[in-house]
Every structure is written in structure tokens, then in C-alpha cells.
């Protein structure tokens, strides 16, 4: 294996998951990607043979599949760890912008696209351009909003419910797996005779998963408190629920915007 893959499985089984984009807001993990490693093949086989459908809710499994070159693997993990830290900082910026949003101003007066899009949605919700179904073109589909919102809540709930299970393979060979409990208890299983380089790679994989989980938990609090305070500011009936997806999209837009600024700053010339 020459290319790294960072995958998270277990979110596809969520009811209503199709209503949400299948991407990690932080841009670090592939969600529900098809699996190719020895670890994954065995795991999927085990699930297929031992778990009747719907009997047990499968947990979340984070897999870092790293290339045989330890140097490349280390660089890739370091880059993603750095990206996770940067995205955490972007979340703080998104929360600040959410809190600074002015309801009194027309949304054309708000400088950024993300703010304009969010305010447009707030205004539509506050007005009458809301339809229950999807048939009324141009109106916000209430049904679609509910589906998105319920899927978001389910995704967040699953994150909170499950511990982190981290599996690392290097050059296609499984090397270690770690289960991190909600309270921080660790159970680590190492392959016999593992070398220090592979050990360090697995440790970095665990750090990356924990940094991601922290950022996602932060995201929950930014979206939930943002939707609640915006619903009060904008006097949208039921807004604390209906604004959930809109605020989620706002945060995603802000993250994408800040990412683009960073890319532009780093571009030569």
C-alpha cells in the first residue's frame, strides 16, 4: 500500500443519514468508505456472520491505513493532526461570527456569503415561504429540514454514545488497535514484536481520532447554542429545531471559506 486512507465506519447505518452530506466537516476522515484492509475484511466478515441485522448497533471504527514507508506515514499523520488543530481554531471563528450576526441589518449588508445565506434562510423561515412537502418550488421544504435535522441529531448522538475504536495498519498489515472509553480509559492491543516506529504511528492515529472527536464535540455545542440563540434573536417559532441544519451549513461554509483563505495565502505568487 502506497497511499494513506483515514476512514470512519458506522455512520451509514443512521436513519436519515442520506439527508446529510457524507463528508467529515473537518475534511480529515472519509465517512463510510468501502474497506480494503485485512483489518476491515475480517471485521466486515465478523459482522456479517455474527450480528443479525438490527440486533446490535455497530460502533464507530476509525481506521488509519498507512503506507509501508514509515516516513511518509508519519508525515501524513502529522499533516492531519495539524489540520485538526487548524479546524478547531476555525470553529472558534465560526462561533464568534455566529454570535456577531446582526438581525436588524438586511442580509445584503452582511459582508460575507455565509452570513447572507444564513440570514436568507432565517428570513424565509420567519416568513411564509415554508412548505410542508417538496412540491412547492422555491419554498423551504419543512419535511426536508426535519429529515436533515434528525439525521444531524442522530449523528451527534452516536458520537456521544460510542467510545473511539482506533485501528492502525501499516503497509496493509494490522499493527495495533486501541479502544478509548468516554472517560479516557485506554485498552491497547499491540501486535507481538511491534517496532518503535509502528508504535509511534499508532499513537499518532489515536491522537488524531481524539482530536477529531474533540472538534466534533465542539461543533455540537457551536451548532446547538448557535441555533438556540439565533432563534431567539430572529423570533423564529420552533427555530431552535429548524435552524439546526442552517447553522450547521453556516459553520461548514465558514470553515470552507477560512480554508480557502489559507490556501490562497499559501499559493505561490
Amino acid at each position, binding site marked *: 500500500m502506497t497511499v494513506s486512507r483515514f476512514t470512519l465506519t458506522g455512520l451509514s447505518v443512521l436513519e436519515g443519514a442520506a439527508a446529510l452530506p457524507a463528508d467529515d466537516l473537518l475534511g480529515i476522515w472519509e465517512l463510510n468508505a468501502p474497506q480494503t484492509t485485512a483489518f476491515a475484511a475480517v471485521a466486515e466478515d465478523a459482522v456479517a456472520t455474527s450480528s443479525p441485522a438490527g440486533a446490535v448497533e455497530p460502533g464507530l471504527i476509525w481506521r488509519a491505513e498507512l503506507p509501508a514507508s514509515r516516513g511518509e506515514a508519519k508525515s501524513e499523520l502529522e499533516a492531519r493532526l495539524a489540520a485538526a488543530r487548524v479546524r478547531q481554531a476555525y470553529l472558534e471563528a465560526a462561533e464568534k461570527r455566529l454570535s456577531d450576526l446582526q438581525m436588524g441589518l438586511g442580509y445584503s449588508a452582511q459582508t460575507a456569503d455565509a452570513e447572507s445565506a444564513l440570514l436568507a434562510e432565517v428570513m424565509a423561515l420567519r416568513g411564509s415561504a415554508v412548505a410542508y412537502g417538496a412540491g412547492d418550488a422555491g419554498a423551504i421544504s419543512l419535511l426536508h429540514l426535519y429529515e436533515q435535522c434528525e439525521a444531524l441529531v442522530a449523528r451527534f448522538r452516536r458520537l456521544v454514545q460510542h467510545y473511539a475504536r482506533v485501528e492502525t495498519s501499516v503497509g496493509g498489515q494490522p499493527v495495533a488497535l486501541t479502544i478509548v472509553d468516554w472517560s479516557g480509559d*485506554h485498552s491497547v492491543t499491540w501486535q507481538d514484536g511491534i517496532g518503535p516506529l509502528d508504535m509511534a504511528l499508532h499513537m499518532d492515529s489515536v491522537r488524531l481520532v481524539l482530536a477529531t472527536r474533540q472538534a466534533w464535540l465542539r461543533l455540537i455545542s457551536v451548532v446547538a447554542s448557535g441555533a438556540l440563540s439565533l432563534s431567539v434573536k430572529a423570533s423564529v417559532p420552533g427555530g431552535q429545531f429548524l435552524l439546526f441544519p442552517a447553522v450547521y451549513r453556516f459553520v461548514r461554509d465558514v470553515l470552507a471559506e477560512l480554508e480557502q483563505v489559507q490556501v490562497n495565502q499559501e499559493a505561490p505568487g
Partner: protein
Amino acid sequence: MAESDLRLAIEKFAKDLAAKAESFVEDISTLEVRTFTTPSAEIATLAGGELDLADPTLARQLQLRAYTKIDFDCDTTICLPVDNNDQVDRSVWDMHQTMVMQALKTRESMLKSMGTALTSALDALQRVAG
């Protein structure tokens, strides 16, 4: 799906979060780290499933090599890995110590996260009430 379904979903999530916060306060009073090793031919078979040590098949595959328990008041229990000559197995011990440090950092950051989440929730509730 209707607003009442969504409301129920959010209420369920809020209850789960509250239950987690409650169990977190209980669980955080101790920190446990276990280090196992397994033959290289068998590690792949552990993928995806539960690490239930009561399972005899699994118990045969895994060898507990080191264990640390740290109470909130810093009382610490440590089981050291030794080799056939009763000498401390340095390689396993080093791996285990690294994980203990990682676990302590994780617990610290989880405490901060829970604090931030609760502060945000209280802030939001105050805004609604105000």
C-alpha cells in the same frame, strides 16, 4: 416525520448527553489503562468486534502485559510486565507508559470539553430565559 418526532429525537439526545455527563463524573474518578499483546497472525481477527475479556476465545488471543489504575486522589495501582527471568520487560513497559501519558492528556481534554459544552448550554438557556 413531524416536528414532534424531531423534538423527541433532540430530547433523546439531550437525555443521552445528560446521562453521559453523569456517568462521566463517576467514571472520571479512576483512570485505567490496559496493554495487551497478541500474536501477529491473530491481530486482524480482533478488528471491529468487542474486546470482551470474558469471551474465552478472545482471552486466549490476548495477553494482558501491563495495567495501571490511577484514582482521582492520585492513588496508583500498577502491574508491571516481566519476562521469564522476572526482569521488567522494557519494551512493553515503555509502550504502556506512553499510553498512560496519552490517557491522562485525554482525560484532561475531555474535562475541558465537557466544561465548555455545559457552559455553552447554560449560556444558551440564559439567553432563552432572558
